């Protein structure tokens, strides 16, 4: 019998059919992968499985019995628990309190905490996954990977509520982990399989194939296929996810134009800061320079320093030969530098403000007449960029938070284009969290901008992306530039070549 089964689940939201008759089977002691583009219905399905979303139609069966899940406690009572994508731990409580939160049991008597019991209960959970975290450590003093272990230990508390083997759902657990931590997590998942079923969700297909026994592919709110992972290749899954064979020219390499000028547009000499030292780099007009490096290589800080958002201790930055003040984001903007931050939701945009306001945030002058906002001028400007970048938004006044990730990112990019004076773009993980279609559009946009002469510094989401997009790659390790690898069309380096330099 299946541990968990979903039959014909339907969920409507105003204007969208998030789930359109999804079927899903989770067998006992298996790791089931769930793959699908953004908007395929993955997150709605997961929420329905833990009672955060009530489906309009369809059934959820636990061990063959149809159940109604009203909230997370209901789901836990049926043995279903989820490790959420945004970590769901209270940062200022101890690990032990987080693990038993909401089901303290013997840890609290008549409202009074019994710390020794709490500690023991938590230790039992941590022992299950073989973790050596101190249960009385404050959660915000733990590393990200440690906190994830705490979450898994917490989710396993549902074993206390149900006699049956639990179903553990992991929603994008790897998205912020380093490769070493991912290995630990995978070992943990294989361990969980001994006594539980696991549903694993990730947008990295190689990971899904690596750790799962079986993969169910979702598209447009429906299950479109099931693949046994043994012998499967990412490309095949890709195709099922996007519903066509997909373009082979994912990175629009055909649209790449050779770098015309030898004259550097951006020229950095001896730049040093807290996490990087003596960084020299040049980027020519129309060139895309990717910076790669492992976590802690300092590349993120260098990128922010170029925009004046990170303090520097030494060095200089010149744009077309003119030195710019450090550190000052204002000076950077004035020099025609644009920055697309990695944290789109918190740093890239103001979610409650409209598309138009977000687009004109940095280049206010473009929408002003004298000191006043000129509504017609703004409308014309914004509409023209909505059209040029084919941003899908109901209206220019729609709050940006309601658009899809890809369209949000286009607005963030447009912010630097509306002034018409952008000469250098700093793109910090510009495709993070975007689905394949939206990624492809961002790549196309980058190519267009490059051929119009804009210089680009790219911190790519993956090595493949860096290799696919860049004309040249800078490898950073331990805060220094380790080496520079040319990356012309037709003579691209292999990921392995780069990895050797990164570690």
């Amino acid at each position, binding site marked *: 019998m299946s541990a968990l089964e979903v039959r014909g689940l339907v969920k409507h939201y105003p204007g969208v059919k998030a789930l359109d008759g999804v079927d899903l089977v989770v067998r006992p002691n298996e790791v089931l992968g769930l793959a699908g583009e953004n908007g395929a219905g993955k997150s709605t399905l997961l929420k329905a499985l833990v009672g955060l979303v009530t489906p309009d139609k369809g059934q959820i069966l636990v061990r063959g019995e149809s159940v109604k899940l009203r909230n997370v406690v209901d789901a836990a009572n049926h043995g279903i628990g989820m490790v959420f994508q945004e970590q*769901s731990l209270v*940062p200022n*409580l101890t690990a032990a309190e987080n693990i038993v939160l909401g089901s303290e049991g013997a840890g*609290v008597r008549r409202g009074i*905490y019994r710390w020794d019991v709490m500690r023991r209960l938590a230790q039992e959970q941590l022992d299950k996954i073989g973790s050596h975290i101190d249960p009385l450590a404050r959660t915000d003093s733990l590393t990200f990977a440690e906190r994830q272990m705490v979450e898994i230990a917490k989710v396993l508390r549902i074993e206390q509520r149900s006699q049956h083997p639990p179903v553990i759902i992991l929603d994008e657990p790897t998205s912020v982990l380093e490769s070493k931590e991912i290995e630990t997590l995978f070992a943990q998942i294989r361990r969980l399989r001994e006594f539980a079923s696991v549903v694993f969700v990730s947008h990295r297909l190689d990971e899904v194939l690596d750790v799962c026994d079986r993969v169910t592919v979702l598209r447009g709110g429906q299950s479109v296929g099931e693949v046994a992972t043994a012998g499967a290749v990412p490309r095949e899954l890709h195709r099922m996810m996007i519903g066509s064979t997909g373009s082979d020219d994912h990175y629009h390499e055909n649209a790449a134009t050779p770098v015309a000028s030898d004259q550097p547009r951006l020229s950095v000499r001896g730049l040093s800061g807290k996490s990087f030292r003596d960084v020299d780099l040049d980027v020519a007009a129309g060139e895309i320079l990717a910076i790669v490096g492992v976590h802690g290589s300092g590349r993120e800080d260098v990128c922010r320093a170029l925009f004046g958002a990170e303090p520097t201790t030494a060095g200089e930055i010149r744009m077309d030969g003119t030195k710019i003040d450090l550190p000052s984001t204002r000076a950077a903007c004035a020099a025609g530098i644009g920055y697309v931050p990695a944290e789109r939701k918190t740093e890239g945009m103001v979610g409650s403000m409209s598309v138009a306001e977000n687009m004109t945030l940095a280049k206010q002058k473009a929408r002003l007449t004298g000191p006043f906002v000129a509504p017609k001028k703004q409308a014309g400007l914004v509409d023209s960029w909505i059209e040029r970048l084919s941003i899908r938004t109901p209206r220019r006044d729609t709050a940006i938070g309601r658009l899809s990730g890809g369209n949000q990112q286009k607005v963030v990019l447009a912010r630097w284009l509306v002034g018409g004076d952008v000469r250098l773009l700093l793109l910090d993980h510009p495709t993070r969290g975007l689905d394949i279609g939206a990624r492809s559009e961002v790549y196309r946009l980058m190519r267009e901008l490059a051929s119009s002469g804009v210089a680009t510094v790219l911190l790519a989401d993956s090595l493949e992306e860096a290799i696919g997009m860049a004309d040249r790659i800078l490898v950073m390790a331990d805060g220094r530039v380790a080496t520079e690898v040319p990356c012309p069309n037709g003579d691209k380096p292999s990921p392995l070549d780069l990895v050797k330099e990164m570690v």
Partner: protein
Amino acid sequence: MSFRDAGPPVALIVIFGLFAVLSPQFRSLTNVQNIVDSAAVLAVVTCGITFVLMMGSIDLSAAGVMGASALTVSLLVANNRNDNDFGFLAIVAAVLLGCVFGGLSGLALVLLKVPSFMATLGVSAVGLGVATLMFAGVQPNISDTMLESWAVERFLGFSYLAWIAAACILLGWLIQRYTRLGRYAYAIGGAEEVLTLSGVKVKPYKVAVFVFAGAFYGLGGVMVTSQLGAGLVQAGNGYDFSAITAAVVGGTLLTGGRGGVLHSAVGVLLVMVLTNGLVQIGVSPYWQGGVEGVIVVAAVAAAVIPQRRRNQVVK
């Protein structure tokens, strides 16, 4: 205790030391007793407000609740307005009245979704209104010997009021450390959504915290009545903002999830030492308010230095 929690205690010691060096009157035993005695009411009120601040809410109801409680207790103990003489029961009644007002704030917050700032401001006005009705134009002077003795009698050199305050701080600390109410108040300030996702119903705890804080304000009103020997509508005047100031100076942040009762106790002492010390070294009373304000802002700025980041957003 981590490094970032060490700021306020260190500041307290430094400021105390500074005044002690500058002024022989300041370092006298009598003056130290004075400081502690005059800190008593503020300490009790701050203790209550700390739990609300820990949740990330705010409470401006202290002044109104204290006024209502002051009138209630003074009309229920032996007084010149009526023949009541309920003694200790009158104090219990005043504290319970505080709980009721706290409950009103809490319910307005969780049921009517009124932000705590407005809800408690409203409750404060209601409290003042109730107090004014009870006052009815004639000031009730108390003649209850027990209540009068609180402000006068001493034990081991400190007034009974100071000992009551110390007991409140101890109680508050125990609740914060060892009860679900205290830990959840702390957790609500840390990440409320997470509690919901873990199946915890937070609303009852929120109301309970306001009720609990109300009890402390009620007791504060009783203590002021003991000091004045009479029930006044204005008994709680200024305590609302002084308590918030003391809590924040002590390291309990308005954003919630940080600090605690002991932090706030240190904050209260800091504020009181400052007020007293400025008088003792001869700063003109005309200057005092302004100087205090500057020092408070400086203290908070110093307290947040360890967490300051570039491009940080402060509201």
